[in-house]
């Protein structure tokens, strides 16, 4: 459908180019807000706008002072450390439990599949404020508020649906006869899992894990309700920055986060290509 057919009339031509322009604008709408903060984070003035100097590309108008601000600020460094620690452990919990559940759910003999699936996906559907309020009451009762364990568990709950969804989707194209083949060759089920199943579904597991990680890394409401000052994460720090003293340091942090998401996106893209290649080789 690329290009206009030679028989197209004037109206069709106008429509064709108008359509493309509209699409271009939508893509700009998607990407521009994210790109605009990158140059602004190098602003040497404490403003959120482009100064005259920046527009005329005056090197004086650009500086790294907001990045220096992050490094000099113990709170930001502490919250970065927290974000990675909490994200890491929440991802481990979510990935292990989610992958196991997905393996069970994709077996042909799984009973009550639909209702179990609905329960497992529900953390993604229930509004975050309700989840956070409910967990706040529950965690205060079992003394988990204001602890790392509490935050990690709550983030793991939020991350599991993504793992379940991605791994189940990967398993739907997994050739179950490979398991029977391995069994017929005398392999024990655990060995089959680690040498046959896992390598084949690994892209799905990793992308599920990345989803779980970014869910935790980006989460602020649970932290607002459950964490004490000690467990502040980057989004929590940005939250109070945006609500209280708004400073361009936030833009510098935001820029760093954009680069992090570019890295994650690249990893995902490579995984997708790998699994496409593997699928191309498989006999189906």
């Amino acid at each position, binding site marked *: 459908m690329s290009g206009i057919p030679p028989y197209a009339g004037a109206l069709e031509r106008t429509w064709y180019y108008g359509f493309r322009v509209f699409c271009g604008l939508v893509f700009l709408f998607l990407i521009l807000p*994210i790109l605009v903060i990158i140059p602004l984070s190098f602003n040497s003035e404490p403003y959120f706008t482009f100064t005259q100097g920046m527009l005329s590309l005056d090197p004086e108008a650009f500086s790294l002072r907001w990045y220096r601000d992050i490094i000099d600020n113990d709170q930001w460094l502490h919250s970065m450390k927290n974000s990675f620690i909490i994200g890491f452990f929440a991802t481990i919990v979510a990935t292990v439990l989610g992958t196991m559940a997905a393996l069970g759910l994709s077996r042909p*003999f799984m009973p009550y599949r639909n209702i179990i699936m609905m*329960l497992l996906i529900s953390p993604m559907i229930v509004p975050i404020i309700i989840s956070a*309020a409910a967990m706040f009451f529950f965690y205060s009762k079992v003394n988990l508020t204001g602890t790392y364990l509490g935050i990690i568990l709550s983030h793991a709950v939020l991350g599991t649906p993504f793992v379940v969804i991605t791994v189940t989707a990967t398993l739907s194209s997994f050739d179950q006869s490979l398991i029977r083949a391995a069994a017929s060759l005398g392999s024990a089920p655990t060995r089959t899992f680690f040498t046959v199943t896992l390598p084949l579904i690994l892209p799905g597991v990793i992308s599920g894990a990345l989803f779980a990680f970014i869910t935790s890394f980006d989460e602020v409401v649970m932290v607002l309700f459950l964490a004490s000052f000690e467990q502040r994460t980057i989004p929590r720090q940005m939250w109070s920055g945006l609500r209280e003293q708004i400073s361009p340091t936030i833009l510098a942090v935001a820029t760093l986060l954009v680069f992090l998401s570019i890295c994650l996106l690249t990893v995902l893209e490579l995984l997708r290509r790998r699994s496409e290649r593997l699928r191309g080789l498989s006999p189906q």
Partner: protein
Amino acid sequence: MAVTATTPTADDIMLDASGMPLKQALAIAERNKRRKALIMALPLLAFILVSFIFPIIQMLFRSIDNPAIHDNIPNLSREIQDWDERAIPDEALFAILADDLRAAGKLKNQGKVATRLNYDITGSRSMITQTARKLKKKTEGPYKDWFIGLNEKWGEMRTWVALKKASQKYTASFYLNSIDMRYSETGKIVAQPEERQIYLTLFWRTFYISIAITLICVFLAYPISFLMATLPVRTSNMLMILVLLPFWTSLLVRTTSWIVLLQTQGTLNDLMVYFGFIDDENRIQMIYNMTGTIVAMSHILLPFMVLPLYSVMKTIPPSYMRAARSLGANQAYAFYKIYLPLTIPGVAAGSILVFILSVGYYITPALVGGRTGQLISNFIAFHMQKSLNWGLAAALGGVLLAAILLIYLAYNRIIGIDKMKMG
């Protein structure tokens, strides 16, 4: 499973290697497989049930639970239920109240009673605390005239009707409150006074903002999904990055960008002033109001619309459209008759997803919504953190959750929850 080649006759039951009837052996094998599959899903199921589903049920219980008065002045709470609401109670009930309040005062629980009654009758907080304080000195009756002399509200019917209702173990008053109703002074269900009717407006606002965001997302996502589905794979993969990068970028970052772009001293206003569309004095307020909420949320939720739409459109063979055109349909008619119906499942999936997510949205409205862009979640947070009216927070949450579960069930019925895909 042993397979035999012979056809069984009526009295010839097939046996497996160990001599068990084949049918029975098969049933056992299938049961084992079912159990194994269930065991694998069990750890996560248990984890979700204990740390997610159970807390939510427990929280929803708070929306009908009403322990503050019932537990702290128990004797009065029991006896008052027999009071006939015709006249101010007699000395006996006042004496029970005095004993109960004195006991509550010793345990420093009179504040809880006062706060709870204050939800129903404004200004009754001081009445309770004052009475409890004075009761420390007064050890003997008669109480009735003393109470009324202390605070004339004790001589009003509405105080006692409210106390009777508020001292029941379970209450519907939080739910009534969440839909702008209340118990009147005579115990009937009536509408809240005009100036306190906020929640129905809020539910309605949440609903139409979410509908608006869903429509905007369909309007923006449909063309670009179509473009990506029809372009060569290499180009469409490049364009897909433009969709996925926002999807993977932190919500806080995207909200920050919109603040930067839309605020009165922001980039967009600067541009419009520069090109002379508006004066420097008349910069447009585009954020910290409903516009800000709608724009920022549409941007944040757009990928959730594009991804399901794209995956549906990719499966539609382009030859269908060419066939329609070769049969004489013009572009618009072929699109309307052929392409559009085929993409409806994708539109439905994306719309329901976007709608569910936006109905429960909290962070973005809280940061860029100002006063007019607040949604129901923001008020739940307010009652959780500021007013500490947890019963009302739970009731509002219950209504919201019920609405979302209905849509979720519809989604499951129409599309199937296991068809959901990410990225």
